[in-house]
C-alpha cells in the first residue's frame, strides 16, 4: 500500500452494516492532490456505498463505522446537518445518469446558476454570468436555454460537470460518471475529470469500466462482494494484477482479447445491396452493400443512433429499406434467420418460465427435448435455471438462453444486436466466446453489432463502420 504521508482524505477500516448484516467491510484508502482514487467493481460490489458513506447519504437503515478523515475531521462523527452543510461546498457529487439528476422542468442555465446564487450567495446577474462561463467551459455555451429532455446523454453529463465545476469543492465524487455513454462520450468525460484532477481537486471515481480507471490513473481499488480485494497504483495493478478477480476483469477487457477472427467457410447466406434508410429526415445510411457468408462473423460498429439496429432489422426483413434489396440464399426456412437482442430480459416474456418457453418451442417445431439438454450442457447452463422467470437469472445467463433458443432452430444467420453491451465484462467475454465456438462448430453466418471498436476488430475479419455521417448525439 502506498499511502501518502499527509493525505487530504483518508479512509480507515470503513464498514457498512445493514440490519441483515455487513455489506461492506474494512475499506481503507487515501486520496491526495493529483492522486485520484478509482473504485472498480461490478454493480452490487458495494463501491457506490463507499461513496455514499463519504458523502453522507447512505440509504436509511445502513450504518457506517470506521474513520473517514477529511482534512483532519472524521466525517463519521459529524451530525447529519453538519455533513449536509458540506454538500456542494467541500464535497461535491457527480451523479450517475445525470439526465435523471437534472430537474426535468427547468432550463439548464438556472440549474447551474442556482449554485452561485444560493450556495455561493452571489447576486442574480453575477450568478447567471458565472453559470454561462461554467457552461462554456464544457462547450455547452449554446445549450443554456435547453431543458434536460432536449439534451443527449453526453450533454447531460457535461452539464453535470459544469455544476461540479461551479461548486468548486475540494473533493469531487464521481459515481459511475460514464454509465450509459458510448466509448467516444466516455473518453471525453474521463478527459474532463482528469482536468479537474490537474486543477488540484481531489477525485474519487466509482466505475465498472476498466478503461475509465486506466485513463484516470492514480490509485485503483478493486471491489468484490463488499471487500476491496486489491488496492494499488494504477500502473502496477493494471500491468501485474495479483487477485484472481482482477485478472479475470482485466482479461475480459475487449482491447486485451486475443484476436480470433472467423473467416468465411461457406457461401453467402444473406446479402443486401444498395441499402438506404432515412429516419427523422436524416439519412442513416445509403448505398450500403453488405454480405455475410456461412462461418464468418461480420461486425458493424458505430455510436448509438447511427442505424446499426435498423440495418439488422432490414436484413432480417423486419422493416423495409427505403432503397435497395436484401437477398437470402434460396431454399432456406425463414426460421433459420434469428436474432439476439441487446437487452436479454426484454427478449423473453416476463411471466413465462424459461422451461415453458423452451418446451413450447420444442413442441412447436417437433424437436426433441434432448436437443435442449445438449445445448444446456454446451452453454454451461445449469438445469436448475429452467424453472426461473427471466428476471430471476443474470443477464449473461439469459443471453446464453437466447442463444440456446436460436440454436435449437439450426440458424443459418444470426443477427446479434449489441447482444453483450448490457453484460458485465466477464459475462460479455463468455457469451462472445460461445458465439465464436458455435460459428466454428456449426458455421452460421453472424452479423455482430457493437459500439465497441475493439470487440469489432477482435472477433471479425470484416468490420463495417457506420459512423461515416459524423458523430451524432441523440436525445435520451
Amino acid at each position: 500500500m502506498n499511502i501518502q504521508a499527509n493525505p487530504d482524505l483518508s479512509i480507515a477500516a470503513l464498514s457498512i452494516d445493514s440490519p441483515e448484516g455487513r455489506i461492506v467491510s474494512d475499506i481503507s484508502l487515501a486520496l491526495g492532490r493529483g492522486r485520484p482514487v478509482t473504485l472498480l467493481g461490478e454493480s452490487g460490489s458495494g463501491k457506490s456505498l463507499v461513496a455514499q458513506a463519504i458523502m453522507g447519504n447512505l440509504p436509511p437503515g445502513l450504518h457506517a463505522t470506521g474513520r473517514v478523515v477529511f482534512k483532519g475531521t472524521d466525517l463519521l462523527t459529524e451530525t447529519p446537518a453538519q455533513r449536509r452543510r458540506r454538500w456542494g461546498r467541500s464535497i461535491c457529487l457527480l451523479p450517475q445518469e445525470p439526465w435523471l439528476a437534472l430537474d426535468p422542468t427547468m432550463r439548464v442555465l438556472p440549474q447551474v446558476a442556482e449554485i452561485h446564487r444560493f450556495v455561493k450567495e452571489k447576486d442574480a446577474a453575477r450568478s447567471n454570468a458565472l453559470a454561462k462561463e461554467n457552461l462554456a467551459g464544457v462547450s455547452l455555451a449554446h445549450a443554456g436555454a435547453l431543458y434536460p429532455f432536449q439534451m443527449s446523454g453526453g450533454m447531460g453529463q457535461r452539464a453535470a460537470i459544469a455544476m461540479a465545476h461551479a461548486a468548486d469543492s475540494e473533493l469531487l465524487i464521481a459515481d459511475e460518471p460514464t454509465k450509459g455513454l458510448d466509448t467516444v462520450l466516455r473518453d471525453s468525460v474521463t478527459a474532463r475529470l482528469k482536468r479537474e484532477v490537474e486543477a488540484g481537486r481531489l477525485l474519487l471515481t466509482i466505475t465498472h469500466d476498466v478503461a475509465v480507471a486506466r485513463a484516470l490513473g492514480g490509485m485503483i481499488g478493486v471491489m468484490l462482494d463488499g471487500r476491496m480485494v486489491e488496492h494499488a497504483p494504477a500502473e502496477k495493478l493494471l500491468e501485474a494484477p495479483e487477485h484472481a478477480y482482477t485478472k479475470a476483469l482485466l482479461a475480459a477487457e475487449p482491447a486485451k482479447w486475443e484476436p480470433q477472427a472467423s473467416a468465411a467457410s461457406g457461401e453467402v447466406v444473406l446479402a443486401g445491396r444498395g441499402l438506404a434508410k432515412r429516419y427523422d429526415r436524416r439519412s442513416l445510411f445509403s448505398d450500403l452493400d453488405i454480405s455475410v457468408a456461412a462461418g464468418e462473423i461480420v461486425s458493424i460498429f458505430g455510436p448509438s443512433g447511427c442505424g446499426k439496429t435498423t440495418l439488422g432489422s432490414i436484413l432480417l426483413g423486419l422493416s423495409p429499406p427505403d432503397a435497395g434489396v436484401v437477398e437470402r440464399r434460396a431454399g432456406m426456412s425463414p426460421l433459420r434467420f434469428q436474432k439476439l437482442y441487446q437487452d436479454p430480459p426484454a427478449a423473453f416474456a416476463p411471466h413465462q418460465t424459461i422451461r415453458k418457453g423452451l418446451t413450447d418451442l420444442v413442441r412447436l417445431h417437433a424437436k426433441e427435448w434432448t436437443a435442449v439438454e445438449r445445448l444446456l450442457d454446451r452453454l454451461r447452463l445449469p438445469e436448475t435455471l429452467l424453472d426461473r422467470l427471466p428476471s430471476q437469472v443474470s443477464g449473461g445467463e439469459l443471453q446464453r438462453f437466447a442463444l440456446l433458443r436460436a440454436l435449437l432452430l439450426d440458424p443459418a444467420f444470426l443477427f446479434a444486436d449489441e447482444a453483450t453491451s448490457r453484460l458485465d465484462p466477464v459475462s460479455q467475454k463468455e457469451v462472445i466466446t460461445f458465439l465464436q465456438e458455435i460459428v466454428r462448430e456449426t458455421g452460421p453466418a453472424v452479423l455482430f453489432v457493437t459500439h465497441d471498436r475493439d470487440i469489432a476488430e477482435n472477433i471479425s475479419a470484416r468490420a463495417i463502420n457506420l459512423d461515416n455521417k459524423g458523430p451524432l448525439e441523440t436525445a435520451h
Partner: protein
Amino acid sequence: MRNFLVARLLQAGLVATVVGALCFVLMRVLPGDAAMRIAAGRYGPDARIAEAAEKMRLELGLDRPLTAQFLEWIGDVLRLDLGHSLVTGSPVVHELKVQLGASMWLAASALALSLLVGPVIGLFSGLKPGGAIDRLALAGAVIFRAIPPFVLGLILMLVFSKQLGWLPPAGFGSPREMLLPALTLALGLAAMSSRITRNSVAAVAKAPYFAFARYKGLPEAVVVGRHGLRNAAIPVVSYLGLQAVYLVEGVVVVESLFAYPGIGHALVHAVVERDIPMVQGTALVMGLMFVVIAAIVDLLTHWLDPRVRRMA
C-alpha cells in the same frame, strides 16, 4: 399549444353535435306531433292550437326532408339558437343565463374548497409515506370515494341542517345555502386529489433530481421551492382534467339533491318533463363547461411542464 386549443375546439364541436343529434332524434321519436307539443308549450293547450301547430310546422320546417332538417337543427345549435322551453315558453337562452351563473359559483367554490383540503393533506401524506398522517388520509380517501355524492350530500344535509340546524338544507341566494352542496362536491374531489398529490409528492421526494438538488448544497427551502413544487404540481394539475368529469356529474346530482337552481337541476327537470329544447340547452352548456375546464387544465399543464410544450 395551438394543438390543444384546436383539440378542445373540436371537442366542443363534438359536444354540440352529440347533444344536438340526440335531441333531434328525441324530438322525433317521442309520441305526439312535435309541432303540436311545441305550440302547446308556447301558446297553451287551447282551442286554436291546431292553427298554431300548423304555423309552427312551417316555422320548424317539419315538412322538409329529414337530412335538411337535421343540418338546420345542428346549424341552430352551433349558432346557439336553442329555441323555447316547452314548459315555460320562454327562450331557453334566457333561462340558461341565470342557471349557468348559479352553477358556476357552485362548481368554482367546490373546486376551491377541495384544493384547500386535498393537496394539503396529500402534501403531508407524501412527505412521510406510510406514516400516521398518510394512513389516516388513505382511510379517509377510500371511504369518501366509496360514498356516492348523493349519499354524501344526504348525510351532510341530515347532520348539518336536520340534527344540528346550522345550515339551510336547500335553496339559493346566500353563501350559507351554497356551503352544503359545495362541501359535498369538495369532499369527493379532495378524496381523489389528496391521493394524487400524495403519490406525486412521494415520487418527487424520491426522484434523483430532488436528491441532486440537495447534493448541490442548496438550502432545503430552495430545494423544495425550486425543484419540488412545480414537479409535484404537474400530475395534480393534469388530474384536475379527470376531476372535471366528477365535477360536472356532481353538479347535476348535488343541485338536484339540494334543489339548487343551477343548470344541472334544470337538466334533470327537463329530462323528467321531456322539455327537449331545455334538455338540449342545459346539456350543451354543461358539456361546454366540461370542455372549458379541460381546456384550462391543458393551459395550466402546458405552462407547468416544458415536456408537454415540446410534444404539442
